């Protein structure tokens, strides 16, 4: 008897749980962004569209895109956020074009052809340095300084095959310093399988130098870790828009579009800047008024052709993988 009652109670709690969720509009976000950024979006959405319940599945951007591809016959996700042009380009057929009303505030040159994807924020590549781990080495001010063999094993970067951060940096460097120098630099690099391990590796002192996005390194500066510094290379750095997309056949329907608009709204972008230091793609938010990051105009940027980077992705990765890295035997 007792067992039967318990079983009934368990069944009841299971069904109650699911029906309570069914009344809300469920939107599932596949995101490669850290928890803080996802939470900023979720709490901003809660105010703008309280009927939407935002769930998230997290992982590396490449991994999530391939998962969306695999689920195409039984779509599970509504939104994808985020990855760069060079990574999302290969997955165009999984998404549907959507011109959000918020698009008006986003500069033309950042947008994706046909609005298949929409830029949610802009990333700046920086060199992260842990001054306690430098030893006798001076902090690097330029990319070319990192070519010196004395940096061997001290510099960490995310695997470009699984992380758009890693790909953006290596592709940019290949254009800026050329293949031979990139080969020399690669010989010093330790490759990490996830991009979040780059900044935590530098912050914990596992590595002296890490290559990654400003937005992912700045939380340590903001948190008050004195030995952790961000360097904007003097020979120029790379910027890349971080795109979000509406999944084709998204089960959330109209709610998915509403959540997408919410993601692009001024409120969400401001709160993203405040809590997770992502520079907005919108032109109506003044960065330095909200956080202590330099204005875009103060940073020397080396322009890259995002379309070329996307088209030559496979070929470039193949060549780059043939270079020896610091960890390789």
């Amino acid at each position, binding site marked *: 008897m007792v067992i039967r009652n318990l079983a009934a109670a368990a069944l009841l709690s299971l069904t109650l749980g699911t029906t309570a969720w069914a009344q809300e509009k469920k939107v599932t976000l596949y995101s490669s962004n850290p*928890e803080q950024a996802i939470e900023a979006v979720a709490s901003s959405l809660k105010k703008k569209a309280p009927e939407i319940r935002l769930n998230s599945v997290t992982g590396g951007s490449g991994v999530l895109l*391939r998962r969306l591809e695999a689920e195409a016959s039984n779509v599970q996700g509504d939104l994808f956020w985020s990855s760069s042009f060079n990574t999302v380009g290969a997955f165009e057929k999984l998404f549907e074009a959507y011109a959000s009303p918020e698009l008006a505030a986003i500069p033309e040159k950042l947008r994706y052809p046909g609005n298949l994807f929409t830029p949610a924020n802009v990333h700046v590549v920086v060199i992260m340095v842990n001054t306690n781990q430098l030893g006798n080495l001076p902090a690097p001010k330029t990319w070319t300084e990192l070519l010196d063999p004395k940096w061997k094993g001290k510099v960490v970067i995310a695997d470009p095959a699984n992380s758009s951060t890693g790909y953006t940096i290596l592709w940019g460097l290949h254009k800026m310093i050329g293949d031979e120098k990139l080969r020399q630099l690669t010989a010093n690099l330790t490759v990490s399988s996830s991009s979040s391990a780059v900044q935590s590796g530098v912050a914990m002192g596992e590595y002296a130098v890490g290559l990654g996005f400003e937005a992912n390194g700045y939380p340590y500066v903001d948190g008050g870790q004195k030995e952790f510094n961000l360097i904007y290379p003097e020979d120029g750095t790379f910027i890349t828009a971080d795109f979000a997309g509406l999944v084709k056949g998204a089960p959330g329907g109209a709610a998915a579009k509403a959540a997408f608009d919410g993601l692009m709204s001024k409120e969400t972008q401001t709160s993203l800047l405040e809590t997770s230091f992502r520079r907005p793609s919108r032109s109506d938010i003044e960065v330095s008024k909200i956080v202590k990051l330099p204005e875009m105009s103060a940073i020397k940027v080396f322009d890259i052709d995002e379309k070329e980077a996307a088209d030559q992705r496979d070929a470039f990765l193949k060549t780059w993988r043939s270079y020896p890295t610091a960890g390789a035997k």
Partner: protein
Amino acid sequence: MITSSDLRAPWLWLSLAALVVLLTFIVYPLVNILTASFVGGAESGWARLLADPRGLSAILNTLILASVVTCACVLIGVPLAYVTARYRFPGKSIIALLPLITLVIPEVISAQTWLMALGNNGLITRFFRDYGVQLPSFYGWFGLITVMTFVYYTYVYIGTVAAISGFDVHLEEAAQSLGTSPARSRLKVMLPIIMPSVLASALLVFTMVVGNFAISMILSNQMPLLSVATYQAAVSEGGAAPVMQSTFATVSVVMVMLILFINRWIISRGRFEIAQGRGAKPVPLAGWRAAAIGLAASLIVVISLVPLAVIAIGAFTVSRGPVMQWGNWTLANMERVFVTAPQPLVNSLIYAGAATLIGICFSALVSYLIIKKRNAITPWLDYISSIPLALSGTVLGIGLIVSFNAGWLPLTGTATIMVLALLVRRLPFGMRSSQATLHNIPNSIEEASISLGSPPLRTFVKVVLPMMGPAIASAAILTWTTSVSELSASILVYSGGRETLTIQVFRLIGSNLMAYASAYGLVLIAVILIPIIVATKIFKVDVFASK
């Protein structure tokens, strides 16, 4: 022979129903994995595996790692078990905590805390660097071997301590009276008898290293390992074209099957039966030997407890983003677990609760059929229900994704697949302890009830079940604790909004939010520990006896 009275009784039909359930959720996923690896001819998983040097070195690395960790676990676990079973020394009581620690500390957190001590910037690494000694990088072999050894040696310890306590000292005394020296007689007589237990637990460690997910993910970095390759293939392929994940999963299944086969073969070669022996009484030790053994033993235990201390402190430490402000205390992290984002806690309770309940009912019934109501089907029930022991969580997760992604029973994205993952993975725990007690319940009691006019099913519920009570309770606790801490299968089948506590901890560590991760981790430990304490202290259930 099946007679018409067999057909009238419920047992045959129940056996058949149980067989269908087991075939659907254990055999069918396994067959799907095997077949998926062969699809595509020249482009099949096996062709691709042979062409990929990383895949092959992943397999080789895994074999080497598992062998080294297993040896290290035996070297720590067996001596520790021996001194605990045979001697009394200061600090011995702390060793009693060991079995608990294994169940309680999530592997994710173990790996993270070890990094804090021995990583490039770890406390110990820095200490040695100050004296000019450069420790090897903790990522790769050094870290994997260290962390896995300290996580898994307890299994060898638990297995061996039971065998040594059950060893009959008369045998040793007999050997000595025949003129053999004490040390030699102990070695000659005791070793063959405790060997099967040591071996069984060592092979258990071997299989757990092969299937290990959390520690491998965090510490392997660029070193290829089978479990990491399997997981990455699974996440990127999903359920539609599961070629590489199936191939890697098959390799892991074959590896574990071989190990289990070797185990069986070794045990069958030499079998010793002890007829109700007199266990040795622990001898008190004094002087420097007592101090040395006590110190060494408690050091091992204290090291195993370090992760626990780090979580407890981290859960109440102020943080700003990823930066921990040690020494400043707050309740904000805990508030998050219970108030701001309680979904993982709720999910864990519901999923593990449902898995435990269903698992225990199912295993009680099926064990009853296997032991007391034998028919042509029941041996198969026995075999199939023990298959999950040979499957790593990752392999099981892949099997469920491959089988229930679409098709006749689409379960992807539902709560059912979460419960199913936990249920199948932990089913053998319930089965083993139910079967063990059923052997001890005499048939005559049941026959008496039936001859007094009670129908068979009612006899089972009213007479047999109550007698199985204590065993069921301890199996329930074991199933509960291991379901709550399950990560490797559930992380593959979860969907948005269905995160459990362990998945949340894994994700937060991935986002470098250690304070939040610690808070969820601490609650996870509480969820595991509270039922154990309640059961052992209030209901006097012997949780570890049936393991």
